[in-house]
């Protein structure tokens, strides 16, 4: 069985969408394979992160999950290969979630590998088509987040506001602000970059 299938079985187990036979297989694999055990823990770390909650490892072990699954033979088979916890959580886009998971699943052993291990595991999660850069405008959870979704990054797209933000970053003693602009640079979508550079600036003329 491929690593990809193992991941899918683990995802099903986390979603309580695992059938009895599938549960037995995973339990056997879990008991024999350290990597599967580690992967189970990492999945929980990823889920905790995606839910924005305090980071903690799920207390419920895989063994307990399997026991529950075996008790409930009528447990439904999975409807979709896309794990529920990877679907949008409070407005978080699927592709972005997968990207986060990909890094958590990427555990290069050496610095050399670290440099080469840029997210190969992205391809192992089948529901991703393209990285999503535009996110749902509403999630009903945090008014400020809704606002941010609707006008997200507009401050960095408007030349006047961008100058304000960058000047603010320069004077603010809180270097977190400076970090934000670098994040914007390395992660902004190409189409936004085109908009932002409709009037390319020259060095020294902000």
């Amino acid at each position, binding site marked *: 069985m491929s690593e990809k299938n193992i991941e899918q079985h683990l995802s099903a187990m986390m979603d309580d969408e695992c059938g009895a036979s599938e549960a037995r297989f995973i339990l056997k694999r879990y008991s024999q394979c350290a990597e599967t055990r580690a992967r189970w823990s990492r999945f929980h770390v990823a889920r905790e992160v995606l839910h924005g909650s305090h980071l903690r490892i799920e207390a419920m072990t895989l063994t307990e999950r399997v026991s529950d699954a075996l008790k409930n033979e009528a447990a439904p088979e999975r409807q979709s290969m896309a794990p529920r916890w990877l679907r949008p959580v409070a407005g978080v886009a699927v592709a972005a979630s997968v990207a986060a998971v990909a890094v958590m699943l990427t555990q290069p052993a050496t610095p050399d590998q670290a440099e080469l291990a840029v997210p190969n595991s992205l391809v192992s999660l089948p529901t991703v088509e393209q990285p999503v850069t535009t996110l749902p405008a509403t999630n009903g959870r945090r008014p400020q987040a809704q606002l941010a979704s609707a006008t997200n990054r507009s401050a960095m797209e408007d030349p006047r*506001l961008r100058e304000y933000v960058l000047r603010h970053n320069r004077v603010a003693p809180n*270097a977190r602000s*400076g*970090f934000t602009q670098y*994040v914007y640079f390395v992660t902004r979508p190409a189409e936004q970059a085109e908009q932002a550079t409709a009037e*390319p*600036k020259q060095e020294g003329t902000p």
Partner: protein
Amino acid sequence: MISPRAVLKLGFVALSLVASGAVFADAGSVKIWLDKMARAVESLDYRGDFVYMHDDRIEVMRIVHRYGEAGEQERLSSLNGAPREVIRDNDRVTCILPEDESVMMETYLGDALFPTIPVEQMVDSSSRYEFKLGGTERIAGLTAQMIEITPLDGLRFGYRLWLEEESAMLLKSMVIDADGEAVEQLLFTRIDIGGPIRDVELKPRTRGRKIEIATTAMAEVEQDTDVATETEGQQISAQVARWSISDLPAGFKLRSREHPADPGSAYEHLVFTDGMATVSIYLEPSEQDVTEQRSAMGAMNVFTTGQSGWAVTAVGEAPLPTLEAIARSMRLSNDSAGAEERRLE
């Protein structure tokens, strides 16, 4: 003979002192931790992958940092989306774009690729924050000391920091709003601290165009333009003198005021801070009606409003209501400012 009323009053004062002491009981040790963290982020060698979550987005990035005889060197890159990198070699920053993207030049890039927290003014008797040492947790396989910085009101964000217990390297951080929701989070999923960083790890991986930015050189350019724009600056400053401040949110003070020397920058820049959060106010004449605007990126909010032919824009890492309150505390007067208002002169 002390009256029962006086006893009650003394008791209340005593309780207040006890409460005040409790608020700052951990402040000293927290400051030590934060001092150490600021040094760690700048002076340690480390490489790691981290997740940065904000505005319902998740960015996955890698940072490599080295501090040695050659000074401070860093490389920040995105692990998803289009390959872009920022390379920092001391005060020189190189942004690398894919070949098919347009060029965007910015001259105000700061000089640190990784966030820190200001510690100089934040832990003092007038602080509007409570500082607490939390427990320890494991982050990215390392034991981390949690520090909680909680605002005493809803006017500012709170912070939770997880620092590696030996080096004080920042492993995780959260900015918390008044509802206890995380406005933004940063979390290392893998980090190596203290290991040797090879030269090749600080070289760009992206094949694209390089844009080099020398941050100190830009400061010199700006200084050179001071003379050329002095007249314009005086004109703006004279107009800005009609502005005054009233009813600032508690704890915020005016820290600085300047007129940018850049040609074409016809605005005044005021900086307010409560020691932790910093809010900029920009006052700029506007010939058009100003529509109120609000936007955000993570904990950074922007609010623009209009007043008598001026655009007033607030920018800062504070809740939007606080930015709005500061922006609205700016009052344009016709030489008859109230006695309690503070003139911008």
